[in-house]
């Protein structure tokens, strides 16, 4: 599995750290309530197939959203969190 960093290009997976499903960028408001926080912290769709992950690229420090297939390990694309969440 190789992942394309939006800034550095295609790189070895060892340069990246997995940080879970990409829902991590949609952090609820502090007062959103117990259900919203439980959902955010613990509950997962956990799809078998297409998914979006959040990865951290160690060498350049970018947070990257990766479109990936959990069954085939195919990486379809990636974009910087900074581009999505301004």
């Amino acid at each position, binding site marked *: *599995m190789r992942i394309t960093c939006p800034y550095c290009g295609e790189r070895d997976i060892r340069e990246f750290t997995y940080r879970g*499903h990409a829902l991590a960028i949609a952090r609820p408001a502090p007062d959103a309530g117990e259900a919203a926080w*439980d959902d955010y912290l613990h509950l*997962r769709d*956990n799809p078998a197939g297409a998914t979006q992950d959040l990865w951290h690229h160690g060498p350049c420090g970018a947070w990257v959203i990766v479109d*990936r297939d*959990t*069954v085939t*390990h195919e990486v379809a694309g990636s974009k910087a969190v900074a581009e999505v969440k301004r």
Partner: protein
Amino acid sequence: MRYSGFQIFKQGLTGNSGWKPVWRDPTPKPEYDIIIIGGGGHGLATAHYLAKEHGLTNVAVLEKGYLGGGNVGRNTTIVRANYALPGNSEFYSHSLKLWEGLEGDLNYNVMHSQRGVINLFHSDGQRDYAARRGNAMINQGDDAILLDREGVRKHLPYLDFDNARFPIYGGLFHPRGGSARHDAVAWGLARAADSRGVDLIQNCEVTGIDIEGGRVTGVQTTRGAIRAKKVGIVVAGRSGQVAAMAGMRLPIESHILQAFVTEGLKPVIDHVVTFGMGHFYISQSDKGGLVFGGDLDFYASYAARGNLPMAEHVMEAAMALMPMIGKAQLLRSWGGIMDMTPDGSPIIDRTPIEGLYIDCGWCYGGFKAVPGSGFAFAHLIAQDRPHESATKYRLDRFRTGVGLMDEEGTGSQHNLH
């Protein structure tokens, strides 16, 4: 047929013509009292204990593939009870006791071998933790012996004791730990459940869970609709998909855990040995293959195979610990799909839907839990209250924050275990 030495002798003299298939291949009935979704180790154990302990035999096990074709056939076969936290301690202790009586219980040779597990440590801090964990095991009524360096050398003279980076300080010895023949466990449990009247239905994938007024009424399958008063989901590896059929989201992310086996060698490793400074654990199967595994690949996956960085880490750890196996040739590798929970401990509980129960989240420790999980899940389904060995495996512990069992002490959050 009851298996015995006499039967082997008799069949040997009569051309082995008397051996028959050991379970039926029934057509699903329109209705059962209880449906168990998942014909793996835990599902078959649940069916066995429902029949044996609770007299409930109007039960079907629905398996989308073949019996024992999932994680019970894709693990490193280690059986142990060396946990430290309340909740896990009593559960795995109970499970190990069930293992010790399993062959007599099933009249089946599951090749359970209590060859001893030795967890090595390589620093003073690790020694302190090993001592603490050993004390927790002894307090639970199980066995643990803290070995110093010379004590380890008596058992495992072949290790690289003076490794420059990771010298061996000692080990925590758990003599009752060991391994078992993984497929035989599934087959023995299937045979026992079938012989008591449980229907084991293979090639029958559940495609929907029927719920009326907040109560489960049955399931839709590729072999038609089947009604049931109670339904148990025990499909670790695919828990999220099956739970979604009942409108549930679970605190689970699926990860891949790789394992490896070498060509068959003469007996060389007598115990189950774990390295303390990298992810590597090893035992030798009765066929002679060295069976060893590592850590998760650490990304969500259902691929049942991993990537090379973790394979490389495992091989490096192997060479750091026991250079003697460096010339063994790797025969194959595989990946098991792990239901990872945020705290690294499992779930055996009711669901918000009446009559629907779930047993999932076994992380990378499901094999040793097979009899304990089946026993506790059967008790929960039959009596609607948790068995005393599994009261803490609650589904809501993440939401409430009460009773988290973070055995590794890394935090109760996804991707830390």
